[in-house]
């Protein structure tokens, strides 16, 4: 295992310490229980927006704490859901009197831990609503599974709900907005190489020199199928063939598109994939109204990418354009 770390068991803690030191103007990090919280929390009268999940997906979630996005993030161990005590403490830290919104990626662990946290908060009189993100079209038959995984759309839900909360939207409306965004987002990922969980010390899966995994999850979970390596053009088509009919996205739709790197893929390749995506959308009459190209929700050093499309209405687009000031996403201020 080749990593820039000290001891595997200290990776999350030391990385959080670095995040805190690098962005003291935007956020603070609390340890034991661990959470990242915006520097000026709680903001009186504002709904606190909280997310969290296993570490190893940076900048998600800690890198999206600041102004106009998350008020707090709860980092678990690498690829392991955080725990209810973290979520409860984070929720209290950002409680400005208007309640707290939990943005939860649909993984059994995350869902159950956030559920326990919400029970703990509510038992204590703190209003909590939850938005679940389950946008991964690679999970085909969600009736016989734990449901679709939450992947790329999470970033968009966090940005849009964060902006709405900053503008003063109340908890119930915010939860409804978040659910609308989640319902209109679809993603699919693929990998060229495996990642290595520091504590495990070896690659999560084996993959041949001329193979790729289509439909991979963000924890190196095997995907839909193992295929021979293809060109970027073919890969983009395969992913869009799964994404577009699923919602479905239709001719005339305006979307926010994301080409996301899994951590080990050069930016140069992501722009190349975006070029393919753009062509496919043009041919299908889908308008890319806004876009992100880069590493936004990663899987450690895995090589590969994911594509996310969100059918966006005017409210979503306006909230997308609203100022955001976090380590991972920044514009308008």
């Amino acid at each position, binding site marked *: 295992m080749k990593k820039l770390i000290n001891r595997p068991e200290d990776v999350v803690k030391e990385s959080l310490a670095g995040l805190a030191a690098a962005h003291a103007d935007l956020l603070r990090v609390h340890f034991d229980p661990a959470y990242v919280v915006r520097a000026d929390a709680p903001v009186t009268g504002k709904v606190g927006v909280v997310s969290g999940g296993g570490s190893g997906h940076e900048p998600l979630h800690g890198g999206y704490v600041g102004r106009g996005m998350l008020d707090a993030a709860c980092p678990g*161990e690498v690829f*392991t859901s955080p*725990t209810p005590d973290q979520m409860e403490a984070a929720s209290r830290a950002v409680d400005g009197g208007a309640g707290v919104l939990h943005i939860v990626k649909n993984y*059994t662990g995350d869902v159950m*831990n956030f559920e326990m946290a919400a029970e703990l908060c509510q038992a204590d009189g703190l209003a909590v609503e939850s938005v679940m993100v389950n946008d991964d079209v690679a999970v085909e038959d969600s009736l016989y*599974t734990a449901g679709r995984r939450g992947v790329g759309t999470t970033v968009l839900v966090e940005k849009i709900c964060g902006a709405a909360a900053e503008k003063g939207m109340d908890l119930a409306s915010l939860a409804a907005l978040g659910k609308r965004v989640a319902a209109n987002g679809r993603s699919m990922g693929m990998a060229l190489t495996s990642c290595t*969980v520091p504590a*495990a010390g070896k690659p999560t899966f084996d993959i041949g020199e001329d193979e790729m995994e289509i439909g991979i999850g963000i924890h190196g979970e095997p995907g839909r199928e193992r295929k021979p390596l293809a060109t970027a053009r073919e890969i983009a088509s395969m992913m869009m063939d799964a994404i577009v009919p699923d919602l479905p996205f239709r001719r005339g739709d305006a979307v926010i598109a994301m080409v996301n790197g899994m951590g080990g893929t050069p930016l140069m390749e992501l722009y190349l994939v975006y070029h393919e995506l753009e062509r496919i959308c043009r041919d299908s009459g889908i308008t890319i109204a806004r876009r992100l190209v880069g590493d936004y929700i990663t899987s450690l050093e895995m090589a590969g990418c994911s594509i996310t499309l969100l059918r966006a209405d005017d409210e979503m687009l306006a909230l997308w354009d609203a100022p955001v000031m976090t380590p991972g996403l920044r514009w308008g201020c």
Partner: protein
Amino acid sequence: MEIIDRDDLLAWLRELQRVYAENRDWLTELDAAIGDADHGINMDRGFTAVAEDFEKSPPADMAGVLKSAAMVLIRTVGGASGPLYGTFFLRAAGACTGATKLGPDGVAALFDAGLRGVVERGRAEAGDKTMVDALLPAVAAMQRAASDDGDMRAVLAAGVAAAEEGMRRTGDMQARKGRASYLGERSIGHQDPGATSAFLMIRAAADTWNHG
């Protein structure tokens, strides 16, 4: 031994630390095949924390031991298994509130309460390829043995055998809960890590309490 008390619960939980440390890599490898390669790491971290907590402040009674373990597990394990095992011990604690000792039927009731908690939290059914597939037959076997007036050894032996059988049968199942469910048919042929850790938990109880 025919009854267990607070010290036996403590001994069991301490034994679990040793067991999960010893089986850390195995459980993680099972999870690598159909999950995210952390189940052994999670269990080891959680039960090490439980043992450390007992070092600092050993609870006074049976329910206290189980509840402390539950709270530590909930705080330290994370993932799917954290809330599940946490709820297991929380409900098990509920099943022996006020008790200072448990006989064979009490032990069966303790595991039954834990199992119910797991099912409520995770909503898994038999055959979903989860820890429930080890726990459910184990609890049924223990209850049967206890109602047949089996002694502690018999009840535990029945639980261990049924858990082991249940654990092995998860190999042929297609996962419908947890991460492994994303694999669809590709999950078939791999034993479930959570069912394996559940079997280890019951076997550790038998090992600890039968050599008292």
